[in-house]
């Protein structure tokens, strides 16, 4: 087990290092001169030189890379060009919207997917099964941002229950509050959860069906357990392995989905931050946020790998 964990951890660190090198190369080396991109074609040589010195672009690439990574590890990031505050501060502030949104969406999709998947498996080939499978097939085909627009059309335009977007803030000093904040995140979370739930429900269904055919389930039934008892005591635990894997892989989709859906609902989260950074040509913010998002995907995959080594001892030796 320890060898597995160490090996997996080494790959994890290596992946993070390669990812950071790629982000650095694409955003700082490939373009030739970042200062030119930031200032545009009309910049004077003097202003270019000044920005080059300010951004430290006159230093050798390896030194710049090392100081960037060092800063990230210590939490001391460079200043954003357009906001003139450290990117870490901007990111932490925006995470107060993005993180609750992602957690809410994940929770919704897991609850929905597990109940639908287990229900479909228990009605295998019946009307309920066919219905869930058909609905999930459509769910997979719906772009999350379009579903978000449809939700706005229904709940904000037609019924006028909620506002069409925006975020009031978590504290009452900002004019919001816990309930108002949550209310603003519900529709975006539903929009994000739908596609995730559609895919997860299919995986759950087939995983449950697969495990139900195993010998140990037949033994459990022969011992006198009812179908339901066998399902809850034996099938679900084993069926969770593929479900967990797909959840891990899906997480990258959730991260990118958040970027898009935040823009549909004009939520001041990470997605909105990176999007505005592109418009403002704020390469510093783009670099740090892209690195953060890539790191999140890598970390989640690492955690999932470790988790299923804990659930299924066979995988440790694979």
């Amino acid at each position, binding site marked *: 087990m320890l060898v597995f964990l160490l090996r997996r951890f080494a790959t994890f660190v290596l992946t993070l290092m390669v990812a950071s090198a790629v982000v650095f190369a694409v955003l700082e080396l490939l373009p030739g001169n970042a200062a030119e991109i930031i200032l545009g074609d009309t910049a004077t040589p003097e202003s270019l030189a000044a920005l080059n010195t300010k951004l430290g672009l006159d230093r050798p690439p390896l030194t710049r890379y090392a100081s960037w990574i060092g800063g990230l590890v210590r939490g001391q990031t460079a200043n954003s060009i357009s906001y003139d505050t450290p990117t870490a501060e901007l990111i932490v502030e925006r995470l107060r919207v993005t993180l609750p949104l992602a957690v809410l969406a994940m929770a919704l999709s897991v609850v929905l997917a597990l109940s639908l998947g287990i229900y479909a498996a228990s009605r295998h080939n019946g009307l309920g099964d066919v219905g869930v499978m058909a609905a999930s*097939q459509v769910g997979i085909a719906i772009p999350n*941002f379009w579903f978000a627009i*449809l939700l706005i059309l229904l709940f904000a335009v037609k019924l006028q229950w909620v506002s069409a977007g925006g975020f009031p803030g978590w504290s009452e000093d900002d004019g919001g509050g816990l309930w108002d904040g949550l209310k603003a995140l519900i529709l975006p979370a539903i929009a994000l959860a739908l596609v995730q739930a559609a895919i997860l429900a299919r995986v759950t269904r087939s995983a449950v069906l697969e495990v139900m055919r195993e010998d140990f389930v037949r033994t459990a039934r022969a011992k006198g357990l009812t179908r339901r008892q066998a399902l809850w005591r034996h099938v679900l635990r084993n069926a969770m392995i593929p479900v967990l894997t797909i959840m891990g892989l899906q997480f990258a989709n959730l991260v990118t989905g958040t970027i898009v859906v935040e823009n549909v609902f004009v939520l001041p989260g990470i997605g909105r931050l990176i999007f505005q950074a*592109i418009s403002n040509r704020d390469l510093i913010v783009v670099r740090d946020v892209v690195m953060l998002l890539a790191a999140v995907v890598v970390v989640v995959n690492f955690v999932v790998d470790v988790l299923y080594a804990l659930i299924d001892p066979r995988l440790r030796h694979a």
Partner: protein
Amino acid sequence: MGFWARAKRHPSFVLGAVLTLLMAGAALLSLFWSPYPPAEIDIPNKLQAPSAVHWLGTDSLGRDIASQLLVGAQNSIVVGVIAVGIGLGLGVFFGSLASARRGWVEELVMRAADFTFAFPALLSAIMLTAIYGPGLVMSIVAIGIFNIPVFARITRGAANAVWAREYVLAARTSGKGGVRITLDHVLPNIASQLIVQATISFATAILAEAALSYLGLGTQPPQPSWGRMLNEAQTQMFQAPLLAVYPGVAIVLSVLGLNLLGDGLRDLMDPKLARRR
């Protein structure tokens, strides 16, 4: 029973094929004809309701929605074909190489594939647009890059199974090299799995392109695209809610069609798997 005889009785294959043909037909038709030029601005007739003159109405600039939807299909197909082409070409190459060489080459290819997964298409697109500006080419490249590890993994997994077969051993003893065996035996035997994956990746590419265009990072005006139509429609939601519905329906039908086609092909090409489902 032959492939086509079975295919005709497979509901998801038939429905998927019909929807996919509809999308391809719309794109093909729009090359020669559309009710109006899709980018033609006609302010006096803006935000018209559906009628005999404008089947699906007009947008805030008076452009004909039906024409934009038809021509938008071209855009989705171009992105899908090229992005899947990039993934298929490079992914199959690296996957076959990993499988034929094994050892450190395989390790290197697979680790590189793992690592590329850290960059979903949207993240690569964001990086590329931050430097080169938004555009169709950047979105195709970003989606294509994301497809490479997908195909590399499938190719390597399927090819390893073929390499373990007796007929490959026979080919090796008769003196065939790695390249010859890959071309003569491995690729023909894994082609069906690659076709299925290509269909599904095509659907994913359409979704990704729509998202990028919606964000303004993909296709640029005046070229019509379903994603950008949705972006523009969002500003008119109170006046013309239907504008935000049509492009979405077009995306859903295309993606649904391709996914059903992929599922159908998988069942038809691998009957053993179909029985277990």
